[in-house]
């Protein structure tokens, strides 16, 4: 088990964003988290990455209890997230954006720049190295999020809708990249609305509804689960899962 949540709850005022969520992620697998808007997917990521402290429950990563550990130490340990609404360091160049993350593991700036360049080229942003990140188009910002995360050498990579808002042709190389990362032994947890990609990549699917786990299992089984279909996929489930 590389990531385990035990009975994690988080409320904002009267809203129970997460309500006793328990789930486990095996190493070298792809776990998808789906659910209707407001189901608690992004809160789940915030709690796992450390931006939000859960009100109760426990988070273990790589054999250690990280419930009280600050975000930057989780990130350095290899529990890394991307943001759905991209958060570039706008005034810094693409290279410097990623060098910040690469620097977490490397002593010298030179090494950090080399590692950052590699990550940037891997996500296909090589042409933008010296560009200020604030000037990037939306698709490139998504790639930048991914490059910054990869530079941290994640063991578990939490991807918050990296594919959303991209055209099919922009998606394709990223989906291939994610499949490659998994083949290299990385563990991926995806929040994703793009169903074909979820079905193609995921080993397991976790369905959240109103902060609780509605179902968890293999994609094919989830797609057939009547509760899931009723709660989330709706009548057009055949299309959605195609």
């Amino acid at each position, binding site marked *: 088990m590389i990531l385990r949540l035990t009975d994690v709850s988080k409320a904002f005022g009267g809203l129970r964003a997460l309500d006793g969520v328990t789930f486990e992620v095996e190493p070298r697998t792809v776990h998808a988290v789906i659910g209707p808007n407001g189901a608690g997917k992004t809160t789940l990521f915030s709690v796992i990455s450390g931006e939000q402290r859960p009100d109760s429950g426990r988070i273990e990563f790589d054999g250690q209890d990280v419930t009280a550990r600050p975000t930057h130490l989780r*990130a350095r340990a290899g529990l890394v997230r991307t*943001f759905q609404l991209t958060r*570039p*360091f*706008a*005034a810094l160049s693409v290279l410097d954006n990623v060098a910040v993350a690469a620097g977490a593991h490397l002593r010298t*700036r030179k090494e950090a720049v080399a590692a950052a360049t590699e990550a940037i080229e891997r996500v296909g942003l090589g042409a933008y190295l010296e560009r200020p990140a604030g000037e990037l188009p939306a698709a490139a910002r998504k790639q930048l999020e991914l490059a*910054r995360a990869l*530079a941290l050498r994640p063991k578990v990579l939490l991807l918050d809708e990296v594919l959303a808002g991209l055209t099919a042709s922009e998606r394709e190389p990223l989906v291939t990249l994610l499949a490659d990362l998994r083949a290299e032994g990385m563990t991926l947890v995806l929040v994703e609305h793009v169903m074909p990609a979820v079905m193609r990549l995921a080993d397991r699917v976790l369905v959240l509804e109103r902060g609780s786990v509605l179902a968890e299992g293999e994609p094919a089984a989830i797609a057939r689960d009547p509760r899931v279909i009723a709660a989330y996929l709706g009548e057009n489930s055949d299309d959605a899962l195609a």
Partner: protein
Amino acid sequence: MTRRLIVLAVIGVALAPLPLLLPAAQEAVAVRALLFAMMAVAWNLMSGFGGLFSFGHAAYFGLGAYTTALLTIELGLSPWIGMLAGMAVAAAFGALTGYLAVRYRLKGAYFALATFAFAEMLRLAALNSELVGGAVGLTLPVTGEQGWWTLRFDVGDPAYFWVALLLMLGSVATVIVLLNSRAGLNLLAVREDETAAAAAGVAVVRHKIMAIGVSAALTAVAGGFYSVYYLFVSPDLAFGASVSIQAILPAVIGGVGTVWGPLIGAAVLAPLSDMAATLVRTPPEFLAFLQGRSGLDVIMYAVLLIVVVLAMPRGLYGRFARRPR
């Protein structure tokens, strides 16, 4: 980085002969400009590059000025030691108050107000403490051994300018080296987006406190030099709000968050403030009502600030430079 250090060295070499060329009265203005520059360079590190807007740099300036003055008067120590001690005191004060402000998540205007409150607190403490001369302030000895160790020279001696120049160059070099380091890059990331910086493995609080501490120490050097040069410190001159404004203005006018902006701003501002002072002392016929009035310099600063903010929000340097880093 190497390129910037070379530019800095060229600036140093170009400015060094200035006191030999200028009349004595103008040399005082030049020293004033260097003092402005030191303060603004330090402020710019914390507020321009660190994104932590300070309205209380008088706190660090005053701690440097009073520490240097006290150690010189009471123990007869060299001002160099006084400045080092002042740096340590100011850095400790900055780190502690900075930690409190950061810990309680003060941001933007609230953070600025907190820094202002800390400076006012020190001003009132100095005003009411007999140890540091209360409202009267401290006067440093004029007589005594002269030289580079005691930093005591004849009035108008070019050495004062050279000392200030060295201190200013040292401050800018510190900023350049810091910016080029991993810590400097991380600081810029924290300024741009704290949440994303933490997610990228950056210890956000530690970097903010580092920026505040270094900025405070550099400001204390300016304060220490002030007490050595003007031989007098008082609660208002050391801890007053106008001191904080003097740290902010050159940076804003020259270009916040740029390496050279504060220097350009200081070079523009110091002569202007001198002109304002002269105007009040000996106004021409039609401005006779200004005779002896105080506050003209502050009005002038305000007008200048409004013009700059409206016409070139990125400052003089930002306006004309190709693209700030």
